[in-house]
């Protein structure tokens, strides 16, 4: 479980995160949604330790992450997997080397054991027979799958995804969303996803936090988001013509 307690973050006097408190539970896909510039990415970066909040606390289980030094954070980070917006696969490494990369650093497994684990992870994301390909030879959807395989290589307790559907067509997006959801439930992972894709929200939003101008304005799940009375949330959810038509607003 991840517990976020009253975190604030400002840049040059401009408040980007304003007193945000939220809990993320294992076995659930928790979504951070909001318009571009609302503070979603800053929140995610604070959660994984790429940024340090100005005030407030972030707990990983019983460990106070925000009070840790770099060495202590390292031990928490071995339990973290992350899927980046652009996949962030290492250009210099093949698909299987990308998946084996964290194993090279944090396990004493033999090459055969690492290869076996990499093959298992790649099979889990339905990407077999691509082991020797380089990232530049893969499509966007395949790159995301390799990113997920790499993120789950060390059986993480926590999985973070930054806009996992960006640049993907709607069909591939749903495949990636479902894959993340299945893996989250199968391995009881605490998954936090940063998105502004409403399809993802409806598909896998076990828990949703809506951020508006750095503040957490609404919390709920996909079954009650469409009936919210939060004006800012409705403006976000029903921004598209299609959504307004479905809601009967047009």
């Amino acid at each position: 479980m991840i517990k976020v307690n009253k975190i604030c973050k400002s840049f040059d006097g401009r408040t980007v995160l304003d007193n945000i408190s939220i809990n993320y539970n294992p076995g659930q896909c928790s979504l951070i949604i909001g318009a571009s510039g609302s503070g979603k990415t800053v929140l995610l970066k604070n959660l994984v330790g790429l940024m340090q909040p100005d005030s407030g606390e972030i707990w990983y289980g019983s460990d106070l992450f925000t009070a840790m030094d770099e060495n202590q954070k390292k031990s928490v980070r071995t339990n973290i997997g992350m899927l980046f917006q652009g996949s962030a696969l290492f250009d210099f490494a093949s698909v299987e080397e990308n998946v084996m990369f964290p194993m090279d650093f944090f396990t004493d497994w033999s090459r055969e054991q690492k290869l076996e684990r990499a093959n298992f992870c790649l099979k889990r994301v339905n990407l077999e027979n691509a082991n020797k390909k380089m990232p530049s030879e893969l499509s966007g959807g395949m790159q995301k799958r390799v990113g997920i395989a790499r993120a789950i290589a060390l059986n993480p307790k926590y999985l973070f995804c930054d806009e996992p559907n960006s640049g993907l067509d709607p069909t591939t997006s749903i495949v990636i969303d479902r894959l993340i959801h299945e893996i989250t439930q199968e391995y009881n992972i605490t998954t936090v996803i940063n998105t502004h894709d409403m399809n993802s929200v409806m598909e896998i939003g076990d828990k949703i936090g809506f951020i508006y101008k750095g503040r957490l304005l609404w919390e709920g799940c996909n079954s009650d988001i469409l009936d919210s009375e939060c004006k800012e949330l409705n403006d976000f959810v029903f921004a598209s013509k299609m959504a307004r038509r479905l809601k009967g607003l047009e």
Partner: protein
Amino acid sequence: MSVNISNILESVGEYWLLMKKAFRKPEKWSIFFKQFIEEADKLIIGSIPIIAIISLFIGAVVVIQTDKNMDNPLIDKMYIGFMARETLVLEFCSTMVALILAGKMGSNIASELGSMRITEQIDAMEIMGVNSAGYLILPKLVSATLLSPLLMLMSFILGLLGGALVVQVMGMISLSQYVQGLQFSFKPHYVTYSMTKMAVFCFIITSVCSYFGYYAKGGSLGVGRSSTRAIVISSALILVFNYLLTNILL
């Protein structure tokens, strides 16, 4: 002006912190040695052809120019060899070669790290708990600093060989006179001095270019800007340190 000074001080501070991070004990020595070999191949072995061609031709040109400027019949022509040797060992084979390497090796390092930064590959390593500076920068620093003196030696030998070839082809003096000049008043300390300079210059190139690449921002244009700044600043530092080291070592 005050803003510029504070920016410079900030950059110097960031540079030292990055070096401190890079020089932490590697997570796994086996990974470090693998990277060391790869970087030595890329940075040092990969520079051999250009250094070889330039050294051969510069050696030849120095001999021709020295010959053209020695009109006085009282000066023994064997001094052509002597002058060529002194010019090559004292300045060309360390400072000029380092300036060439700043362009070749420096742009390679800055653009490689810069593109890894903007595609979030460095962030991905950090989140895994890998010391990205230690993994990416330390092997470059160690291989370039330790092995570059050999490049200087190679350049020196090839420069002298270029001179010998031009002496043979143009027949300005006999080869034995040229060799006599090369041996005349030879101070082995000059070779050590030049090798030391080369090691320091290559440390400057790799560390400064790594710094600019590691902290690159602003997309592909930003990577281009960082590479250019890295080369300009490392070239300027080479000249400054050339002056300082010459004062100290000679």
